[in-house]
Structures are given as structure tokens and as C-alpha cells.
């Protein structure tokens, strides 16, 4: 018990890291797309917990809303729209999957070696900057909003136009002739 209290952050990190990786593997190995979608939901939610552990509260909540809510409903709708019975006898993977798995393991090894060879300084040297709004310590959501509307106003507007274009594109693509 004392160990859990003393190492709470580390225990939570490893718990959610294992859940995230396990559900991600389940997403790409399940035969039934509905099970994959549920695994994807688990993956998104545990990733929101990982964001919380890095003091990104706003991103964590947006992750739950947009991924856990919007994108997940979109996927579930499409899974129900297409006929799943024809998928039953289909081969799950393409012919190149053994090569892909070998290359993936090599790529993970390469990433680990590269990341381990870099030494970062102590994390979060100025904790107050993550909640700072114009010299006042308010909160993470306020601070992200402050940056979004002051320094990144033009990208923000472009993102809104992008979403409009994507919406029109999706409607046109899915429309019956």
C-alpha cells in the first residue's frame, strides 16, 4: 500500500500504458469490427488518462468528447451500415503480414534505441507556465484557450474552414446518385 501511494503516478502510467497497448493490439487483430471499435474506445479513454498524468486536462477532456463521443459514433454507424455477414469468411490479413510484423518489431527497436540515446533535462521546469493566463495562474483550459485565440487565431480559423470542407465532402461522397 505504501508503495502504491509513494509511486502513484508511475503505477497509473504503467497501468494505462498496458491497457492502451493491449487494446490497440486488439483493434488490429479482432475479426469482428464491432469488437475492434469497442477496443478503440478503451484505447482512447486510457489515452485520455495518460494526458491527465501529463497535466493536459483540456486535451484529455477533448479526447473523450471528440474521440470517445463523435468519432466512435461515426465508426459504429458505418459498421452497422455495411453488411457484416460477407466479412465472416474473408481472410483477416493481406499476404504480406509476416514481413510487416518483423519490420514493425525492428522499427520499435529502432525507436527505443534512438529515444534512449537522447537525455532530456528534468521535465516541467516551469510548472506555472502550463496554467498561466497573462501572468495569472488560472488553469489549463484557460491557458490553452488564451494561446489558441491570441497566438494561433489564423490556424484556428483555417481549422474551422477545414472542418466545413470535410463536412461538405463527406455529405457529397456518401450521397446517393
Amino acid at each position, binding site marked *: 500500500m505504501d508503495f502504491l501511494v509513494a509511486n502513484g503516478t*508511475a503505477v497509473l*502510467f504503467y497501468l494505462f500504458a498496458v491497457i*492502451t*497497448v493491449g487494446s*490497440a*493490439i486488439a*483493434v*488490429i487483430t479482432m475479426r469482428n*469490427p464491432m469488437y*475492434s471499435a469497442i477496443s*478503440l474506445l478503451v*484505447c482512447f479513454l486510457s*489515452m485520455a488518462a*495518460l494526458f491527465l*498524468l*501529463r497535466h*493536459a486536462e*483540456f*486535451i484529455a477532456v*477533448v*479526447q473523450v468528447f*471528440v*474521440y470517445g463521443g463523435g*468519432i466512435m459514433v461515426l*465508426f459504429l454507424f*458505418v459498421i452497422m451500415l*455495411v*453488411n457484416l455477414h*460477407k*466479412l465472416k469468411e*474473408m481472410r*483477416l490479413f*493481406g499476404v*504480406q503480414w509476416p514481413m*510487416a*510484423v518483423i519490420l*514493425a518489431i525492428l522499427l*520499435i527497436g529502432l*525507436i*527505443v534505441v534512438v*529515444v*534512449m540515446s537522447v537525455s*532530456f533535462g528534468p*521535465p*516541467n521546469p516551469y*510548472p506555472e*507556465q*502550463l496554467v498561466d493566463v497573462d501572468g495569472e495562474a488560472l488553469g*489549463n483550459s484557460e*491557458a*490553452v484557450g488564451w*494561446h*489558441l485565440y491570441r497566438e494561433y487565431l489564423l490556424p484556428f480559423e483555417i*481549422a474551422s474552414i*477545414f472542418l466545413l470542407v*470535410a463536412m461538405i465532402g*463527406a*455529405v457529397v*461522397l*456518401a450521397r446517393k446518385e
Partner: protein
Amino acid sequence: MEIATTHYLVLSGILFVIGLVGIVTRRNMIIVLMSIELVLNSVNLNLVAFSYQMSDLTGQVMAVFTIAVAAGEAAVGLGILVAFYRLHSSIDLEQATELRG
């Protein structure tokens, strides 16, 4: 025990590679779109980890943009999927051979 940025980078690398394997090997188009979401999410994990490492909120702002792009990508991708299903009555990617040269 403090969790270092390295832990997050390794975790996000593993998730990225899992998503990549899903994109390359699966034949079901829905699963391929889900794998793309996994890859975009692993990038978010990187951005947030570096935002904490540097005490700089720019990474979190970029993560918001990534989420917006992922939402648009999912909408358009699933629209293409529905159009493909109407054409072939299947979502098997190995039947998508119209553009073969």
C-alpha cells in the same frame, strides 16, 4: 518514481507502429481507418509529452489541431468507405483495384 518523457516517447512509438501494422496488413477498410486514428493519437501523446517536458503550451495547442484534423479525416474516410461499399458491396481493400496501372 518520476515518469520521464522517454517513457511517453517509447509508448507513443509502440502505438504508432501498431497503427502502421494495422494500416499495412488489414484488408477490412474500417479497421484501416481505425488504425489511422491510432497513429494520429500516438502523435498527440508525443505533443503532450513534449509540452510537459518544455513547460510550453504550444504542444497542447497543436494537439487540439491534430484532433480537429483527425475528426475531418474520419468523416471523409468513412464517406469514401460508404461510396466504395455502394460500388462493390464489399469493404475488402484487395478489391480496390480500379487505379492499377
